[in-house]
């Protein structure tokens, strides 16, 4: 079930160069999302931009919905100009969401990927070991708010301005290397494709289950246009793969199943 509804912006703030935070109050009763789901948000009032844009739910309860996004192109640029009190139209909650963690778990977030993982941390407080990396300390947004939900946390930045210098996957790899007992924890990840590819190598090596939220261009968000597919392994098919819709069968897939 999902809905198309208006919400009112009650907070709309720039949280660093090119990052924006939006807190909305739905004007209708909503269907509560589950972690890892997303919404399509209308950006602007005219036909340009034409499509709604997909954003993970960052935080929520029955009375508010929060989004955290990077200002990238014209859609996010218009959305970042949302004024307090303004109406925003959304469609959602959409997608499958993350499976429930059985106990403790590991979270690997690359940059704005943190937005998708926050609800997991929040609804399983002090259960996650969080690895969160970004280009620099400015882009390691909301790090205090997310890290306080984790059991342990580790930061990395490309320039070493905060946390360890280097890639978050390197940090994670070294961590596993020296904490062999933790390889039985499932990993939840969201970030760039290169990050996820490296993560796949790592998790395959250690036979760790890893769930990753992936991105693809979307038109409808509800499974109707078939525009957002990615290749997923399927050995029942002679080709060895099938096209799965990121908006419907995803955005969360078992990382090992992605056919890259």
């Amino acid at each position, binding site marked *: 079930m999902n809905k198309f509804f208006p919400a009112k912006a009650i907070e709309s703030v720039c949280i660093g160069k090119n990052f924006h935070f939006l807190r909305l109050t739905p004007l209708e009763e909503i269907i509560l999302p589950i972690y890892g789901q997303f919404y399509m948000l209308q950006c602007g009032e005219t*036909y340009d931009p*034409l499509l709604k844009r997909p954003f993970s739910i960052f935080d929520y309860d029955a009375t508010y919905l929060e989004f955290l996004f990077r200002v990238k192109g014209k859609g996010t640029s218009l959305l970042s100009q949302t004024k307090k009190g303004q109406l925003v139209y959304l469609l959602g909650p959409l997608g499958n969401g993350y499976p429930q963690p059985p106990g403790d778990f590991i979270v690997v977030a690359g940059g704005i990927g943190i937005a998708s993982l926050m609800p997991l941390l929040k609804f399983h407080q002090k259960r996650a070991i969080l690895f969160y990396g970004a280009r620099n300390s400015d882009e390691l947004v909301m790090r205090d708010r997310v890290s306080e939900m984790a059991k342990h946390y580790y930061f990395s930045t490309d320039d070493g301005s905060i946390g360890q210098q280097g890639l978050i996957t390197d940090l994670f790899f070294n961590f596993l290397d020296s904490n062999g007992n933790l390889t039985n924890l499932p990993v939840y990840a969201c970030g760039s494709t290169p990050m996820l590819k490296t993560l796949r190598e790592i998790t395959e090596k250690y036979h760790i289950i890893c769930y990753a939220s992936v991105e693809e261009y979307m*038109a409808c968000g509800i*499974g109707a*246009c078939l525009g957002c*597919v990615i290749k997923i392994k399927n050995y029942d098919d002679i080709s060895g793969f099938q096209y799965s819709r990121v908006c419907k069968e995803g955005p969360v897939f078992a990382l090992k199943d992605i056919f890259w």
Partner: protein
Amino acid sequence: MENVKPDLTTKIASLTLKNPVMTASGTFGYGEEYADFIELQRLGAIVVKGLSYKPKKGNPPPRLIETPCGILNSIGLQNIGVETFIKEKLPFLRNLQIPVIVNFFGDSISEYIKTAEALSGVKGIDALEMNISCPNKEAQWCIFGTDARTMREVIEAVRRVTNLPLIVKLTPNVTDIALMAKIAEDSGADAVSLINTITGMAVDIIQRKPLLANVTGGLSGPAIRPIAVRMVWEVCKAIKIPVIGMGGITTYKDALEFLIVGAKAVAVGTANFFNPRATIEIIQGIENFLLENNISHINQVIGSIKL
């Protein structure tokens, strides 16, 4: 004066639609995807995603990209095939009690025939819409809808194997759309629908490669509306069978443009993606427009353009 609810009924061949608003193939899935957002029963008719005889995987991603006021897509006609459609999707659609129009295609004349036969005589399928904008396996250089002779052949072949109302969906990528419509009419079509998407391309200037894996794709959305209205107008002047107009329809005003130039019904495509309630809002908008302008029947709007 008392305001009587205007009559929106329109006829496409032997089908009676309670209003002239249908969905455009490929933009409404198999209907069920939109059940959360609208009362599907209120639609004039439902047109499902194009089917081929066997399931088709479609093109590799990326499959779509936004362009100014439009989208370019190269889904590549991914679909579940006739058999699965009839088994898994049709029962739901049949229950809606509105006309169900099945869009289909093939990559050869024999594929078209096989698919049309498999869809005919199935309870719950009320009409066929034949998509002829597909590459022709047998004559590599053309798609069925751009070459007059091939087009005639394939329509006549399908006509022979089905008694269902046959709508031929025209491609806009031609010099003379009225001529193509005439050929469809002469070859036995009961109606034509237009426009399908216009072939376009977009380039990633950093990677220096096409943004769609398939290189080119089909342009749809508000951007193409003026082209679609012109083509529908040209076709309405040229043929006698009913015309279903589409291309960029987003509001009831857009829909009225198509009806005024002569379309008997319209289809809403890309707009469903950014407004899942678009079809219903358009139906409501047309009804209000008739009410406010004291027009009792949609027929008084259809083809009413003054030149």
